[in-house]
């Protein structure tokens, strides 16, 4: 198992480098222009100077090498410095990855936005998992009962109805008509006492519910299918005939084995938290990493798009490895050598 992990990690490195090159090439070839969103009254000579000042006119390989060095060497050093407070030599000369829109360091803004993305999308994911697994297991146990039918119906709706519709519906009902929850997310709110915690819970209620519906629908269907598979197996019949109570049969035998594929599915979904739920973030003005990515794409901000997409790619590769390893750990039938 140890050798397997090391082998996977080593093959991940060239994979990641190739991914970064492909992403950079695609963005480079795309027709977007960082001055495209500027007012038309700015004359073309000025736009050209702006492009030069940003470094947008440098040749492709120069830009790519600069970015690779900045991402893998300069930025980790900066993050280390800000986290520990120790200043390493050469700190002033280090050029950071600069966003073309804000003219500020990209990594700083990503770190600034992590709290709201994790509060909203992260807690929606956790909540989704917590709700989906019992629903899935129970639906499978009482297959074709009224609980199963209603559950299937609700999950189908949660899966098919787009988040921009449910989000809008929630705003109309809860913000406009009932005036219970705010429709604008306050990112400067710091939770330090019970009152601010109340405010925080109020403002994450709607976006979290919208997203939880979506995640629950996906995971519960998968859990149900997996549990159905296992309930039909011989070892369940053996457990029952041994005289074990229904509760023990389900919780100690069926659920554990059904959860193996579900856990790997959940692990594969974790990188999605980082990318943020782009539409939900826009609707509720949560202004997390997903919203930052979409604004950067629309504004032709190459360094930002490159950095965020690449971090996402790294997380996907990493969690793929985690999912595979977990599968090996949880399922004794799977042996890696």
């Amino acid at each position: 198992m140890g050798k397997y992990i090391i082998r996977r990690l080593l093959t991940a490195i060239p994979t990641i480098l190739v991914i970064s090159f492909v992403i950079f090439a695609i963005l480079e070839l795309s027709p977007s222009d960082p001055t495209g969103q500027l007012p038309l009254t700015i004359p073309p000579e000025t736009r050209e100077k702006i492009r030069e000042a940003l470094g947008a006119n440098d040749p492709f390989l120069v830009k790519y090498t600069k970015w690779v060095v900045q991402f893998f060497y300069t930025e980790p050093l900066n993050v280390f410095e800000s986290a520990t407070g120790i200043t390493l030599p050469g700190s002033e000369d280090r050029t950071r990855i600069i966003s073309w829109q804000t003219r500020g360091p990209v990594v700083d803004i990503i770190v600034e936005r992590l709290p709201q993305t994790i509060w909203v999308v992260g807690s929606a994911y956790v909540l989704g998992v917590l709700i989906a697994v019992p629903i899935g297991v129970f639906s499978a146990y009482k297959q074709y009962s009224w609980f199963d039918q209603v559950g299937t119906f609700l999950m189908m709706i949660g899966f098919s109805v787009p988040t921009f519709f449910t989000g809008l519906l929630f705003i109309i009902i809860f913000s406009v008509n009932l005036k219970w929850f705010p429709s604008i997310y306050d990112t400067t709110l710091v939770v330090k006492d019970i009152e601010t915690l109340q405010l925080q819970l109020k403002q994450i209620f709607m976006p979290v519910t919208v997203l939880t519906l979506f995640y629950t629908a996906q995971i519960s269907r998968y859990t149900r299918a997996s549990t159905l598979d296992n309930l039909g197996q011989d070892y369940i019949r053996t457990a029952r005939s041994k005289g074990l109570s229904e509760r023990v049969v389900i919780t100690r035998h069926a659920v554990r084995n059904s959860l193996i594929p579900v856990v790997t599915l959940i692990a594969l979904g974790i990188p999605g938290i980082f990318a943020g739920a782009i539409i939900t973030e826009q609707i509720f003005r949560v202004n997390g990493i997903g919203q930052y990515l979409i604004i950067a794409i629309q504004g032709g901000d190459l360094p930002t798009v490159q950095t965020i997409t690449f971090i996402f790619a790294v997380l996907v590769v990493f969690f793929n490895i985690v999912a595979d390893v977990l599968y090996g750990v949880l399922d004794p039938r799977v042996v890696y050598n």
Partner: protein
Amino acid sequence: MKKMRFLMMMCLVALMAIGSLIPTAVAQDEKVLNILYWQAASTLNTFLGGGTKDQDPSALILEPLAGYDQDGILFPRLAEEIPTVENGGISEDLTQITWTLKEGLVWSDGTPVTSADVVFTGNYCMNPETGCAWANQFAGVTNIEAIDERSITVTFESTTPYPYGPFVSVFSPILQAAQFEGCEGANAQSCTEQNFGPIGTGPFMVEEFRANDVVTFVRNPNYREEGKPYFDRVIWKGGGDAESAARAVLETGEADYAWNLQISPDVLTAMESAGNGQVVVGFAVNVERILVNQTNPDPALGDDRSSYMDGNNPHPFLTDPVVWKAMSMAIDRSLISEQLYGAAGQPTCNIIPAPPIYASPNNDDCLVQDLDGAIAMLDEAGIVDSDGDGVREYNGIPMSILYQTSTNAVRQDTQALVKQWWEQLGLDVELRNIDSAVFFGGDPASPDTYGKFYADVEMFTNGAPGTDPQGYLGNWRSSEISGPDNNWLGNNVPRFYSEEYDALYAQLSETSVIEDRAALAIQMNDLLVQTGAYIPLVHRGSASAHANSLAGVLINPWDNEMWNIADWTRIE
């Protein structure tokens, strides 16, 4: 395990239930203003900014020497008075203008404002490596010099009848030299602290800046006007879309002011009827118009598509006055304006519809749609459908038109209406829309930019920045024709050529009497519209909404919407 999960969920639900029951006591002692711009601010340094979304929040901090009020009249901000030829502020030969700062001006950190700050700002923006977005404000400036502690003289390379470009309006505020020292040229990009928190003379200062998200401002204790501003704190939130921003002001009351509400007029009116807020509209010079390609965009020409080629590549039929006049007559501008723009639009027949002295009265016959007249005109000229396929031919060429614009719901609706009318005329119309980042971008490799104009007609909005149209009118000189030699970045996009126009422009750049300038501007506007380079459609205003409890808002399309935020108060 299941019991634990169930218990945890119940705790969470209980917490939320308790939370919603306990009334939340918010600190009422601070006067807070909530502003919502659905495009968030990326930087607070106007010179590096990306348009109104960055200029307006920075206008709370940074101020220019003079600005325009809601009627487009110049008034002094940091300067003592407006320099003119009469008071000796402008030299007789119109090449120099001298500004004097007010006495006793201080920055928000307490240090005095001096002429050195003004000189520094000018050099900062004129430095080609800075990438200053508003370098055009300093066009023609050869020297900026401090005469004494409070006076600055700006020298132009030639006679400049309208010298109020540098240091006037939101496009050219004054930066603090001490703060921005070392940030000129290539270093501009790395001065993040300065760009995100400039020190200014305005009514507010920055407390916290989160790029593309939210800006928190607090009152400037050193603001020069006693008792102002009213508000202690301004929260400038960004993100989302225009419709939810309107909803936040007009329906839920979560925000006090929302900007640029480009949404369907009936939706906006319905929201306004809730009674929480009102919509205010300001009209500047922005006109949504159709550009008529004077050159031939035929793909068979290869690299010579839409190229002027010294007049040897005219459009096969759009240069014929009968044709474009008929196309213009067939359009019902009032319908487009009422249905698609509502209160934020008015039908227009001019490229320069405002200020009133510059608006030409000679083209208003286009305001009434005359479809029958247009059809008759084409029939009389012999441009008929000879092969019975429903499309007229011009010298044997079927009149087939490609009509392109950016991706935008209102624009697509406009296209559908215009296509309907033109097809009744007997033209074949194909519609196309392109993502705005590509359409308005300057990528010379992309065939879809508005500068390349690989279509017969295209449509978008443009307007003069500020009240004086000289710079704007200069866009249509023959030297500005967009083509391969300037990477299709020339401002003369329809490839309009007129020696008379060039001569009028030369005359305008030497005329200083306002009435004479206005007369020349009207003549130039008429040339553009009456020779078929443009079919103007709608004079567009900007619609914003504010809460009824907010007093003092005077929407100003000439400078910026936050120009008098120091005067805003809350009606108790």
